[in-house]
């Protein structure tokens, strides 16, 4: 019986395993699905909008809905000044969403179930937010870590806590996405394994659960992409406004 975590194994695609200066830079299954996600989202957003008809076709409707969903999210959560960062937020959303959804295709690979991928995304958000804060506010950005109206003798404790809390953002952002995706896919595989080992008659019960779980996983795929994006918006707002 295949192990439930075998699906997360990264393998180079045969014929595409290269090394450069001693580093392994093979084109792996993870890279393949990332590339597919980029191609799919680009196709979805360009090809479907190609004609840009006033009465949208189904695909155009999908593209418009996604665009408006994120545009409104940025507007509501990051404010007017945050609109500048819409392209970044939208790209991030599409990459995470398609990673989660393409992972639901049987035999595919879910790159968002790897902590290094989600951590890289979260680190990107973290660095961008910090840069926005420093560029917009300069030295004043450090006041971010100094709560207003606190007596000075509490500062030595409170400021490190605030800094640690700030530093823990990328960790919680990435772990949330990664853990949700990995747990969901492992669960699917475990129940599928039950179905196989219990045979045709008794295997129907885990199969029924699996059907429900697939639906649940698709919900989780949307939810986690949504949460990841909305938190990015909130962080951008923080950096812009500095309370």
């Amino acid at each position, binding site marked *: 019986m295949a192990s439930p975590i075998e699906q997360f194994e990264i393998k180079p695609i045969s014929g595409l395993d290269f090394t450069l200066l001693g580093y392994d830079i093979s084109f792996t299954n993870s890279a393949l699905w990332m590339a597919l996600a980029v191609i799919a989202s680009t196709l979805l957003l360009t090809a479907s909008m190609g004609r840009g008809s006033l009465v949208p076709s189904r695909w155009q409707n999908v593209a418009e809905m996604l665009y408006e969903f994120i545009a*409104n999210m940025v*507007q*509501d*959560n990051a*404010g*007017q000044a945050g609109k500048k960062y819409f392209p970044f937020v939208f790209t991030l959303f599409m990459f995470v969403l398609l990673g989660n959804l393409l992972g639901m295709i049987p035999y595919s690979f879910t790159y968002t179930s790897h902590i290094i991928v989600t951590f890289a995304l979260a680190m990107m958000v973290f660095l961008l937010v910090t840069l926005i804060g420093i560029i917009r506010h300069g030295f004043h950005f450090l006041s*971010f*870590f100094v*709560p*207003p*109206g606190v007596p000075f003798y509490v500062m030595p*404790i409170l400021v*490190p*806590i*605030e800094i*640690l*809390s*700030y*530093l*823990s*953002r990328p*960790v*919680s952002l990435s*772990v*949330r996405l990664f*853990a*949700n995706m990995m747990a969901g896919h492992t669960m699917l595989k475990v129940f599928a394994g039950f179905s196989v080992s219990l045979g045709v008659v008794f295997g129907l019960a885990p199969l029924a659960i699996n059907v429900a779980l697939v639906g649940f996983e698709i919900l989780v795929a949307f*939810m986690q992409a949504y949460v990841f994006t*909305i*938190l990015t*918006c*909130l*962080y951008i*707002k*923080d950096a812009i406004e*500095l*309370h």
Partner: protein
Amino acid sequence: MNDQSHDDKLKAFSQKLEQFENPSTSSDSSETIAKQNTLGIGFRVGVELAAGIAIGCGLGLLIDHYFDTSPWGLIVLFFLGSAAGFLNVYRAIGKMGYSVGYKEEKPNQPSSD
């Protein structure tokens, strides 16, 4: 279709149009987070708490490694990290929208809708 309902429709449409052109900026972002299901909240709280402690311990070990202060860096930063974790949880739950830093109380803005 009589004139009355036509007028009403027109009015509703112009209202919608106005809303679209001047979207209210008063909508509270933290509400959307508070509206999620309990499982999501539970999971989030766990992650927030663990993230704070993990960052504290990691940083403590790093400091110990580079400044040869073992075990004091780990001890101090473990407690500070735990406090940061609790702070994260408090912010996530307390409708403060995950933000680092204290928010000063804002008077409720009158919402336009």
